[in-house]
């Protein structure tokens, strides 16, 4: 199977050099051709996208952009649509995630981009989304209008299917001429989405391009960085630092670094009736995308004092992970990944010998690992791929000092607690740097309009032009109708 990645308006397939990336999983393989553009081609493409966005995308009412995106998403949500069938067939091979995970994950995720949800994105950031179409009266007097970037460059990372759509769609909503650089780990969905948009509205298809270069290819990256006025980049802090250091100082740089998610469970949630279903939700969050999402849980803090103890709850989670191992098998791990998992587990086993309050559940050969510790332990990454540490605490208040030192890496936390406790802990977690608090079972599915990393998806992309009231009043003086 050969699949071509990217979306290159104004460039014919034959004009471009292609490189093949090989993927294999679940007994199948696929070869993905990714475009390798020359410097002149890249600059011409940037100019083409910028010009077309200026001439067309920026003239469209935001409502029409919403309608077009909605149509494209509807096609990807339609399980009989050829694009969706292709996604369901190929993404499991490319990312290694099992078919059900990809299918369910994609459907849940795509639902956040239907028209009503896109309205929510807009409403979250703009009191009056019409500000993207025309000057609107401002509270302080005068008028304001929001303009998206001329050329917005997205640098995506990771293999979580469709991760790219979040920022890609945000950019389109603010009418940005768009260049998206796909990650080698999932180079396809962004390009498919761009092609669907182009099928629905060919002129819109000229306003965005999906490209690729080898990560670390400083030369190619430099060309694109020089062209963009706004850069959204995902990746580890080292990669982000390298991009930031090469980006023009005049460009707006919006980084999304890697994060550690965690969960916190109140004693009130741990009665014998609730603990089982809750453990299933925890396990669900752990298996979805093998904990590779920034929002995925890597540690679980469980309060003592409930009918079910932290240790018993860890057992329940372990049992649920065992069940999921059959229905949603873990993807095959590389030697390095497997070695990381084994080192993490063995280290915990070794520590368990010196500490009676530490238990490693299950067998070393199991495709999951749960460790339960009775003494407070600071937040730390697990080995991913279904490895979870359960830390017993006396109350949720004890969680805050354990996570607070890691502010730069905080983002999502799932909390299971009654309302009063939820708000009390949310207050303190927010102050410590947590930007998203959700229910268990929902960690990997942020709701529409979510402020990724606590920032504004759309507002961060635009610049505001103000007509001050003085200009408005002065203009009256120059009118023909003035007396």
């Amino acid at each position, binding site marked *: 199977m050969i699949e071509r990645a990217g979306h290159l308006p104004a460039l014919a397939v034959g004009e471009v050099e292609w490189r093949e990336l090989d993927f294999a999983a679940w007994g199948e393989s696929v070869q993905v051709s990714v475009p390798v553009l020359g410097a002149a081609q890249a600059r011409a493409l940037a100019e083409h996208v910028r010009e077309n966005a200026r001439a067309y995308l920026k003239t469209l009412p935001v409502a029409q952009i919403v309608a077009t995106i909605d149509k494209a998403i509807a096609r990807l949500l339609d399980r009989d649509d050829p694009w969706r069938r292709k996604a369901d067939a190929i993404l499991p091979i490319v990312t290694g995630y099992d078919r059900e995970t990809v299918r369910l994950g994609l459907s849940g995720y795509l639902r956040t981009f239907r028209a009503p949800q896109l309205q929510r994105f807009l409403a979250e950031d703009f009191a009056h989304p019409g500000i993207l179409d025309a000057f609107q009266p401002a509270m302080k007097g005068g008028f304001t209008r929001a303009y998206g970037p001329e050329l917005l460059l997205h640098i995506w990372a990771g293999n979580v299917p469709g991760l790219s759509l979040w920022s890609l769609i945000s950019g389109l909503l603010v009418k940005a001429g768009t260049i998206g650089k796909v990650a080698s*780990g999932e180079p396809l969905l962004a390009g498919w989405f761009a092609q669907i948009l182009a099928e629905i509205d060919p002129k819109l298809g000229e306003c965005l391009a999906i490209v690729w270069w080898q990560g670390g290819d400083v030369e190619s990256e430099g060309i694109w960085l020089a062209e963009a006025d706004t850069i959204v980049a*995902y990746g580890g802090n080292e990669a982000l630092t390298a991009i930031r250091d090469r980006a023009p100082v005049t460009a707006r740089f919006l980084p999304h670094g*890697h994060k*550690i998610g965690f969960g916190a469970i109140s004693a009130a949630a741990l009665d014998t009736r609730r603990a089982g279903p809750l453990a299933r939700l925890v396990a669900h969050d752990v298996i979805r995308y093998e904990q*590779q999402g920034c929002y995925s849980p890597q540690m679980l803090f469980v309060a003592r004092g409930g009918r079910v103890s932290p240790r018993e709850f860890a057992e329940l989670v372990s049992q649920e992970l065992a069940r999921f191992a059959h229905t949603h098998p873990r993807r095959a791990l590389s030697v390095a990944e497997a070695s990381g998992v084994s080192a993490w587990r063995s280290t915990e086993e070794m*520590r368990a010998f010196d500490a009676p309050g530490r238990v490693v559940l299950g067998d070393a050969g199991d495709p999951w690992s749960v460790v339960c510790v009775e003494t407070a332990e600071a937040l730390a990454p697990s*080995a991913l791929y279904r490895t979870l540490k359960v830390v017993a605490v006396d109350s949720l208040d004890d969680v805050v000092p354990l996570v607070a030192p890691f502010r730069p890496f905080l983002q999502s936390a799932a909390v299971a607690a009654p309302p009063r406790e939820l708000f009390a802990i949310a207050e303190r977690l927010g102050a410590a740097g947590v930007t998203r608090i959700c229910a268990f079972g929902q960690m990997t599915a942020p709701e529409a309009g979510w402020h990724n990393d606590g920032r504004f998806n759309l507002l961060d992309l635009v610049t505001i032009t103000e007509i001050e009231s003085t200009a408005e009043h002065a203009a009256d003086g120059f009118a023909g109708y003035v007396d």
Partner: protein
Amino acid sequence: MQGIVPDHAGPREGVADVTEAQIIEALLGFIDRGEATEAAFEEMALSVFAYQFANNQPYRRFAIQRSRTTLTVRHWRDIPAVPITAFKDLTLSCTAPEQAQAVFMTSGTTQGGIRGKSHHPTLVVWDRSMLVNFRQRFMQGRERIAMGILFPDEAAMPNSSLAHYLALAKQECGTPDSEGFIGAEGLDLARLIAALERAQASGEPYALLGASYSFVHLLDALAAAGRRFALPEGSRILDTGGFKGQSREMGADAFYDALSTTLGVPRAACINMYGMTELSTQFYDDGNAVCPPVKSGPHWVRSRVVDPVTGRDLPEGATGVLVHHDLAHFNCVSAILTEDAGIMTEGGFKLLGRVDGADSKGCSLAVAEFLRAARG
């Protein structure tokens, strides 16, 4: 030496009573016997395992957790291998660690500055293991050779197993004019160039031994000085340890090509030693004419390639993680699960580099990056 099972006891009962002195004597005999069949290795391995199971408490608990005790383990391959990360968290020693003659520590470059430790109540086995193997694989029949050492000495690095290794090599196999060229000020290039000039003029073989990254520094310095040498036939090079961020990274082919052209030592005479602080025995290749070369150890060490999760052996030709079973590492644990990827092959194994530090393929923070961040 047929194991060390007391006459009155059946196999594996009673071996727990073996003393340190007995195990040392048995091991020295085993090293000196020149070769070992699978059965002989197995017998010795089970004796060493019984000794460690009896005397090394953390290892005993580890083995019990893995359901591998002296009662259940019948083959050396079943002896549970300890991941090397454990050396950072636990004191794995059969004797009181404060009575150790030497404590070798890892450089701490890979794990957020935490250093793994190996305690040696005596270095007599370590030294014998090193020398017998070194003579065979590096000296290749020569009694002594003039040596230049590209590594700090033992006084500067008292916890470095490599410093001890090189000191032993120089003392036991070096000619009197052998010397070290790395001091407090780094590489003493002028003195080294003078030594290389003398060696070139003498017609006598010369040996350069040291850390791989020191050779990169040397290559860069000689290139900057515009110097090249043609060391006499029989000259050889021993590098070890990789670059570890201490020098620029070089591909193996580029590295050995550069050594060969700059020093006049053919790639076939450039031997890479693969050793670990967590072992008492080293592995060698037979030159680096072709990379990666096959590496192997002496008859008192055996290696396996396993699936790191299940710990099961992988078939020859499959890439996995290396497990080394080094009987000479008697005071700690003999079976070590490394963080090195490898493939079993005819005559040994091929080393494919480290497997630690796998970053997340997604956007979650992985341990490797977390440690890098913690290190600052």
